């Protein structure tokens, strides 16, 4: 029992059950204890540890620790803590409980040793994160939350279908590496996981929902859903070639939309797709170095992306808007937020001495070492777009761009600054001491990011991106718009779907009902007194409610027969 309660995911979920009984004043502080406890467990549990229990007729491996699951467990616990600090001022119990369940189920997925445990936590993750969207309580968030939930229920369904098929084929429920073989079971599982990893064209839920989630909810969401899917991809589908090209395409797709979008949180949401593309590409390449790169990049990404979402969330909190057309000129009013945001922005852009540099260059180099030069150049193109959209466009149009901005700026709670500072510190720390991260990576490969070659490569690209941005920056601002994406197919199709599956079916049932009633009416009328139409020599009309002596005689005769038979039987 103690062992079951000491599973990181379970710690957080049990925490979520305890939280409602804590007085409101202490609740946010108690929240933080659970991620810390989970972090402690992750650090102190040796690799190779396994805990299993019986469930129905299955033996479930609820927790299995190896280097890969441990590094994800560490970063998930850290982020849950940092995001908890960021949300410390929140008094909304629903959000707090669901955030804990969400983080807990992401940890549950990470340490799951069998597919059944995995799918249970997987679905729990979908449901609890939906709450963080709905908690914004706007019309937009209601719709986006519903679309998000439907998408994830579909993805979870595909994954579950794949798992059942896989079990029927192989008799194994273990979470293990599958060799590249496009059987139906494998494809179902792959597509199910790809929904959560936001692989194009299954990515629209992300860009739709994240900008509409609550300020603090988006910080949690930026970390868990896509990265737990990346973890499963690394574990189950490494070296699946298709992923290389989907990943590289995602990396570019995301940044192009990030350049188009005019809402700061939407820019970041699209940019997650691009960043996950780097990881998915690395997983597709599948060499030890590429998988290390994908893992390291997931680790770094969670840190700086949550920092960026915290920064933009702070702007939204302070000004009440996230549209770049209303922002600009905020530097004097929010200088610290700008500074902390820029740490995240320089990290994500892979500038040396920040943590993006140590992981992004690893993934790109892995593509180079594997002689996939096409993929390598695509990823470099995506890095240009990253610096352009998140590192230059977003901060320029938020903090500069205008001379003055008379928008009213609310004071930020101190805990927001603390959370951003912790994340910023981590970004710089790992950027300066990459070996503190490399030591936890799943494979032992030597890699040194601080070479002159990488420095020259990164700095030349970044400097010329800056030059390009400066020349063309006027093209990047503008009014808020909706950028159509493949969600058009289901959002615009909604009326058509409703017509086919609701209106037409309703109409069909209506017709059938009318028909049945008409037939019943017709038969009642005809058989009330069949003599009216059996006997052609009468002109009596048959009325349904009219009195008919002939029928009475028949009925009485039948009744009498019954009575006579009954009496004979008794005698």
């Amino acid at each position, binding site marked *: 029992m103690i062992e079951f309660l000491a599973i990181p995911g379970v710690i957080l979920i049990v925490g979520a059950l305890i939280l409602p009984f804590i007085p409101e004043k202490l609740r946010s502080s108690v929240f933080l204890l659970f991620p810390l406890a989970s972090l402690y467990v992750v650090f102190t549990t040796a690799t190779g540890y396994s805990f299993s229990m019986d469930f129905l007729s299955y033996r479930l491996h609820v927790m299995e620790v190896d280097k890969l699951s441990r590094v994800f467990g560490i970063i998930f616990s850290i982020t849950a803590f940092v995001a908890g600090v960021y949300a410390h001022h929140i008094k909304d119990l629903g959000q707090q409980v669901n955030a804990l369940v969400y983080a807990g189920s992401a940890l549950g997925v990470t340490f799951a040793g069998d597919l059944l445990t995995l799918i249970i936590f997987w679905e729990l993750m979908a449901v609890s994160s939906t709450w963080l969207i709905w908690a914004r309580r706007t019309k937009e968030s209601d719709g986006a939350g519903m679309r998000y939930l439907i998408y994830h229920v579909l993805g979870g369904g595909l994954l579950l279908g794949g798992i059942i098929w896989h079990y029927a084929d192989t008799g194994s429920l273990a979470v293990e590496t599958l060799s590249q073989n496009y059987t139906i079971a494998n494809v179902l599982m792959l597509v199910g996981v790809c929904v959560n990893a936001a692989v194009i064209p299954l990515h629209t839920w992300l860009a739709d929902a994240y900008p509409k989630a609550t300020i603090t909810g988006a910080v949690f969401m930026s970390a868990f859903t896509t990265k737990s899917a990346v973890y499963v991809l690394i574990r189950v589908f490494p070296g699946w070639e298709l992923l290389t090209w989907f990943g590289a395409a995602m990396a570019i797709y995301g940044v192009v939309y990030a350049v188009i979008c005019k809402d700061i949180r939407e820019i970041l949401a699209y940019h997650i797709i691009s960043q996950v593309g780097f990881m998915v590409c690395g997983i597709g390449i599948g060499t030890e170095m590429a998988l290390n790169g994908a893992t390291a990049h997931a680790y770094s990404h969670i840190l700086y992306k949550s920092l960026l979402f915290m920064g933009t969330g702070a702007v939204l909190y302070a000004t009440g808007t996230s549209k770049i057309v209303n922002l600009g000129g905020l530097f004097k009013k929010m200088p610290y937020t700008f500074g902390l945001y820029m740490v995240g922005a320089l990290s994500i852009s892979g500038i040396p001495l920040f943590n993006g540099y140590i992981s992004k260059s690893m993934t790109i180099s892995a593509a*180079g070492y594997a002689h996939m030069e096409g993929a390598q150049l695509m990823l470099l193109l995506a890095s240009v777009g990253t610096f352009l959209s998140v590192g230059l466009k977003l901060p320029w149009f938020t903090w500069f761009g205008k001379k003055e901005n008379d928008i009213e700026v609310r004071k930020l709670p101190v805990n927001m600054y603390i959370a951003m500072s912790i994340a910023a510190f981590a970004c710089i720390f790992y950027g300066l001491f990459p070996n503190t991260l490399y030591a936890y990576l799943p494979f032992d490969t030597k890699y040194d990011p601080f070479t002159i070659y990488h420095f020259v490569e990164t700095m030349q690209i970044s400097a*010329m991106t800056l030059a390009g941005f*400066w020349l063309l920056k006027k093209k990047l601002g503008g009014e808020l718009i909706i950028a*159509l994406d493949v969600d058009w197919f289901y959002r615009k199709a909604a009326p058509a779907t409703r017509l086919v599956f609701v209106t037409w079916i309703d109409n069909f049932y209506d017709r059938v009902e009318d028909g049945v009633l008409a037939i019943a009416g017709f038969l009642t009328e005809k058989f009330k007194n069949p003599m009216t139409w059996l006997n052609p020599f009468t002109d009596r009309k048959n009325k349904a409610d009219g009195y008919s002596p002939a029928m009475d005689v028949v009925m009485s005769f039948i009744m009498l027969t019954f009575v006579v038979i009954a009496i004979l039987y008794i005698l």
Partner: protein
Amino acid sequence: MNWNKAIWTTVTVIILITLGLEFTYLSDYDSHWWNHIPAFYAIYGFLCCLAIIYFAKFLAKNIVNRDIHYYD
């Protein structure tokens, strides 16, 4: 603050330093086909930047941009 001056100085300084490093310390000229092109990453970075901006602008104008109430 004179942004123009600051930006162009930064760009020039970085490019000069990295070009200096490229021609003095770097000996990797053959691991990829592009390694023998001098200042390749600077040229590539600049072209990519322009390409992304113009491509995004083209997409936005002709295909994807809609009024904010499009889905209402």
